[in-house]
């Protein structure tokens, strides 16, 4: 699993082109390079027209960028997807059971499976949620679990995103784009559809309405049109046919939430929020928040409105908690985990710290509260001086870090300046939990467009690909 071993190639194996890529490879051979170039330009123009762009903070007004879209699909055979899907459902079930336990009886702490101070002193732990019952005992209604493929092709979970995971609009728009650009390919492949995701999501959100509400009113809460993910918020609301609201559109009276409409106040039952906990309610959390709804927490605790994802889910997707997820699967479900965790050294443990300091040049060290690829050391790519500086930071506060072996992420052929070349990818499927646990066959494949780069984040030059799960 060291960086020196060649990465798993999604398209080519020792036997040549892998079976599930053969039809695509033939098509590619017969398609002129100019046509691909033209289709790529067409995709860019369409994305601009549809406005699938994200705002760039700090640049002149009106600056909008596209997240680069790659026209080579990432193809997953049916058998691989079945394994993945089963593992994802299992993992999200365990995580929901864990969050419920943490905010109620804390059995897992009593059983000694996890050090109590990891939870209780965690910044993401919300004591306001202690003893609060939520519909169906579901906390993480929408989970965007990041999966990578390494070594000889085995899947690993890299992160469980349980707060406000984004990217699902790209999953759908990438599919629409591919069908528009290359309809002939879809005639040759049985690609499982993903465009019904908004239907599933709406059904899921309605299934977790407060008890006694027959025809729940669902809204999507956005920080507003200057947020970088605004396109996605608007897209999801429109696709579900529900109102997209900002904090100022809502108010709380007598522990009920209402939206201000042209016909007076209307009750709101389920809020799919795309705002972090900290900004949700200035009376309960950050008092300077202009984005939230004063009194929302009280209405939520009174059971008069449901908030998805629940407040306080961050305690379960924190990097310091991640190493314990396989234990959660065993503890709550009595099952063996179907998906691998990346082996993780928890530097608050003395032996892990010692090992890490001895092997810094081979490891990736991450800050437990960091996100988006910031604040990390990639040992094999770092200079001696960088490693020395990071070593000092670790020694000063080892509890702030975890370390993992450098994974050689799998690579997928990608259209770049020089033609088609392999680039590293990951996968984010979206797992929905309500009355049941469901997911559409697919997800968002992110690709690191820079040669050799392992960072797929869109903030750092990553792109996206359509993800094809084959039905047979």
């Amino acid at each position, binding site marked *: 699993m060291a960086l020196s071993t060649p990465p798993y190639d999604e398209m080519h194996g020792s036997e040549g082109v892998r079976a599930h890529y053969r039809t695509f490879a033939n098509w590619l051979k017969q398609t002129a390079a100019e046509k691909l170039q033209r289709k790529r330009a067409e995709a860019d123009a369409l994305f*601009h*027209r*549809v*406005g699938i762009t994200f705002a760039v903070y700090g640049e002149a007004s*009106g600056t909008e960028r596209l997240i680069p879209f790659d026209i080579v699909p990432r193809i997953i055979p049916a058998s691989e997807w079945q394994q993945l899907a089963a593992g994802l459902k299992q993992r999200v079930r365990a995580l929901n059971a864990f969050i419920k336990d943490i905010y109620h009886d804390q059995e897992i702490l009593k059983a000694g499976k996890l050090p109590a101070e990891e939870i209780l002193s965690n910044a993401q732990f919300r004591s306001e949620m202690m003893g609060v019952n939520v519909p169906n005992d579901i906390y993480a209604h929408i989970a965007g679990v990041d999966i990578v493929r390494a070594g000889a092709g085995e899947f690993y979970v890299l992160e469980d995103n349980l707060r406000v995971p984004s990217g699902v609009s790209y999953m759908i728009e990438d599919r629409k784009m591919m069908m528009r650009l290359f309809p002939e390919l879809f005639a040759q492949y049985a690609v499982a559809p993903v465009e019904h995701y908004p239907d599933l999501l709406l059904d899921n959100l309605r299934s977790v309405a407060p008890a006694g509400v027959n025809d729940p009113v669902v809204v999507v809460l956005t920080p*507003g*049109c200057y947020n970088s993910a*605004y396109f996605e918020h*608007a*897209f999801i*609301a*429109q696709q579900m046919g529900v*109102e*997209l*609201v*900002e904090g*100022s*559109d809502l*108010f709380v*009276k007598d522990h009920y939430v*209402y*939206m*201000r*409409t*042209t*016909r*007076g*106040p209307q009750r709101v039952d389920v809020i799919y929020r795309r705002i972090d906990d900290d900004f949700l309610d200035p009376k309960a959390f950050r008092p300077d928040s202009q984005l939230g709804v004063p009194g929302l927490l009280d209405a939520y605790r009174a059971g008069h409105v449901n908030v998805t994802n629940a407040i306080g889910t961050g305690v379960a997707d924190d990097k310091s908690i991640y190493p314990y997820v396989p234990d959660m699967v065993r503890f709550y479900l009595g099952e063996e985990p179907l998906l691998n965790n990346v082996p993780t050294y928890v530097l608050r443990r003395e032996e892990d710290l010692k090992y890490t300091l001895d092997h810094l040049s081979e490891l990736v060290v991450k800050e437990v509260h960091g996100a988006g690829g910031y604040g990390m050391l990639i040992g094999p790519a770092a200079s001696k001086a960088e490693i020395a500086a990071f070593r000092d930071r670790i020694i000063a506060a080892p509890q702030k870090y975890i370390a993992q072996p450098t994974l050689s992420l799998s690579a997928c052929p990608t259209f770049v300046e020089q033609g088609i070349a392999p680039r590293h990818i990951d996968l984010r499927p979206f797992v929905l939990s309500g009355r049941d646990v469901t997911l559409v066959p697919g997800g968002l494949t992110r690709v690191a467009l820079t040669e050799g780069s392992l960072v797929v984040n869109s903030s750092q030059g990553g792109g996206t690909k359509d993800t094809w799960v084959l039905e047979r």
Partner: protein
Amino acid sequence: MLSSTADKLFWMARYAERAENLARMLDVNYRMSLFPQGPQSVNQGWNALLAISDLMGEYQTRYDGITPEKALAFFAFDGSHPSSIISCWRAVRENARAVRGALTAETWETINSTWLELRTMEVSVNAGGDVSSFFEWVKYRSHLVRGVLRSTMLRDEAFHFAWLGTYLERADNTARILDVKYHLLLPGGEGVGGAADYYQWSALLNSVAAFEIYRKVYRDVITPRRVAELLILRDDMPRSLSHSIRQSYFHLKQIRNHQSAETERRMGVLDAELHFGRIEDIFQAGLHEYLMSFIERVYELGERVSKDFLVPTEVA
């Protein structure tokens, strides 16, 4: 629907209509400036345009003296004041972007692609491009937006708020166009005659797409009184005050709520006055005075619509 959404739809439509009328006024001014006449009257046209838009001050802080080139740069592409075509379209697009969930995909994409194209046109028109085809383009894009709205949107509140905005804005804009041109052309009261007059009046009619309509309706020479009658009282003339208020009244009735009765009553009174009014009475009272009072009433109706529907109401 959300008050804030209704507000943005209302203003989205108003700005699209305003951009179009601005292009119409600029186009007619530009064409008039091509007729043989002294520099004095050319300036008068641009001065009048600045006056009706209340923009004289803004203009003078940016430019010395008036030439067609400067005036066009100011009205079309100067994004540093809110009344240029580019500023109007930015507002259309920003409002639409904030409520794109309430629009059909085709409506949104029409608006967004107009904005993206407009930003690239700025360069070519400023570099000596064809000004008149630019104004035509602006008009056609507004036609397109309305067409897509009408052919793709569900007949729900979103639709009615957009059209209410369109027609209130049009009522205001046509009144302003008529006022400024009338005064410019007839400083000393009503009079007829001369080839220059003919071209001036036909240019005014053209600016509101009414030249052929005039011919069809009156089958006679162009007289100022008939022009005023056509643009004020004919409710089958789609850019007239009467038609604009009739349509505003219709859309207002569709969105009626528990506090909008008084606004509806006032709109109904204005509609009835236009429907049963006579041009002789308007001239007797003074056309300018009539138009000023009309613009004021339309403004108040707009304010009342905001208060009844768009400004977030407090806890009931």
